[in-house]
């Protein structure tokens, strides 16, 4: 299958053009954030405080990388499981977040939010952290440094390989593909 190339930040046109099942190579800026960073960002929104970065059009990658070895940009950096961020996602979609990279299911609230505000959920290959690190060209901590592996990092990536699992119409590849292969 032909892979689609996209750049971040993502426009609404890009979001609309992506469909569940598309294999995509992402280039541009991607911000990292997982459990603890999401809790802080949602708290910031509740208190009317600024987020550590403007999420409009951006993509958040659910990852806590290993420390970089000397001479490396980043350590191993595969996706973490996304459902833990489900209750902390819609307020970010409301602010214009257009993409999330993780692995595993999302709940209906997130899917409804993606349809309403226009966003894509991508999956990267879980457990392929050494391979994925090759597409990360720079990494810089931009917030919550004290959280260690959970700090928010700004990554510059080239041809970061992902698959569209849930598109902005709510089509879910996990459901459609599993059905095809289930014999039980």
């Amino acid at each position, binding site marked *: 299958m032909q892979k689609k190339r996209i750049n971040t930040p993502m426009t609404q046109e890009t979001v609309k053009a992506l469909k569940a099942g598309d294999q995509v190579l992402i280039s541009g800026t991607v911000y990292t954030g997982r459990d603890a960073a999401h809790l802080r960002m949602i708290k910031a929104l509740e208190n009317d405080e600024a987020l550590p970065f403007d999420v409009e059009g951006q993509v958040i990658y659910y990852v806590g990388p290993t420390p970089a070895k000397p001479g490396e940009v980043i350590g191993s950096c595969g996706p973490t499981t996304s459902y833990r961020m489900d209750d902390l996602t819609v307020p970010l979609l409301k602010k214009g977040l257009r993409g999330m990279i993780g692995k595993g299911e999302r709940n209906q609230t997130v899917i409804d939010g993606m349809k309403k505000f226009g966003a894509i959920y991508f999956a990267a290959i879980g457990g392929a952290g*050494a391979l994925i690190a090759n597409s990360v060209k720079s990494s810089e901590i931009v917030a919550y440094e004290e959280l260690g592996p959970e700090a928010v990092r700004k990554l510059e990536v080239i041809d970061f390989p992902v698959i569209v699992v849930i598109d902005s119409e709510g089509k879910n590849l996990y459901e459609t593909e599993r059905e095809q292969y289930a014999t039980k």
Partner: protein
Amino acid sequence: MRTIDVSVIKESIKHMCIDANYNIGADIQAAFHKSLETETSPIGKSILVDLLENARIAGEKQVPICQDTGMVVVFAEVGQDVHLVGGDVKMAIDQGIREGYEEGYLRKSVVADPLNRVNTKDNTPGIVYFDIVPGDQVKLKVALKGFGSENMSKTKMLKPSDGIKGVEAFVLETVSLAGPNPCPPIVVGVGVGGTIEKAALLAKQALLRSVDDESTLPHIKALEKTLLEQINQLGIGPQGLGGKTTALGVNVEVFPTHIAGLPVAVNINCHASRHMEVIL
């Protein structure tokens, strides 16, 4: 009486933490190759190829296979004719973890309190189980347990009348509900019998066996085979994107239990199943 200095234990723990995180087990690698022959999903096949490539890169560059370098679980079998000297053995094990995770550039994933959640920044403490066994050797087994799969694990107290069908149904339900979350293809450890915590411990110990290992008990060997076949009919596939390769293997451990009970625990491991052992 044989004397072993705990600094030797510390060094072994440290090296196993680094080694197991960088180098995929030969059993898992063989299972990937075997799955490639049977997998029919194009996307599933391409994921298996990527996982082999990931393992090659990790081994070559000596970097972690997965960024979740795990919480360290140690099973220490200490011979009753061994005299441990040179300090507190539990502290030595934690020091081995500390040095391994620092020097190996591994991720520190442990929080000091489950509710306050402040990172200990050295991946300690490890979870350590001591057992006293005959002899004058010390056997150390480590499992570096990632939590994407740990979170999908379950325990249930079945009724004796539920029998083997009940066990099968619970394992299948657990794997089915886990879906794409634990990074399939997975390895499934099942503990049956004992008490609630014994069943969970058996499930963890089942994961320490080689993925292609078979139980020596004929009825349990048959159960392992049936479960693997049934799991791979669920259609979940590599990364949950459809296919025949949902699990690489199922290992079942059993223990005597009470006349009133049939405890079952299912401990799921991701394909980055990292464990090692050493005999001192």
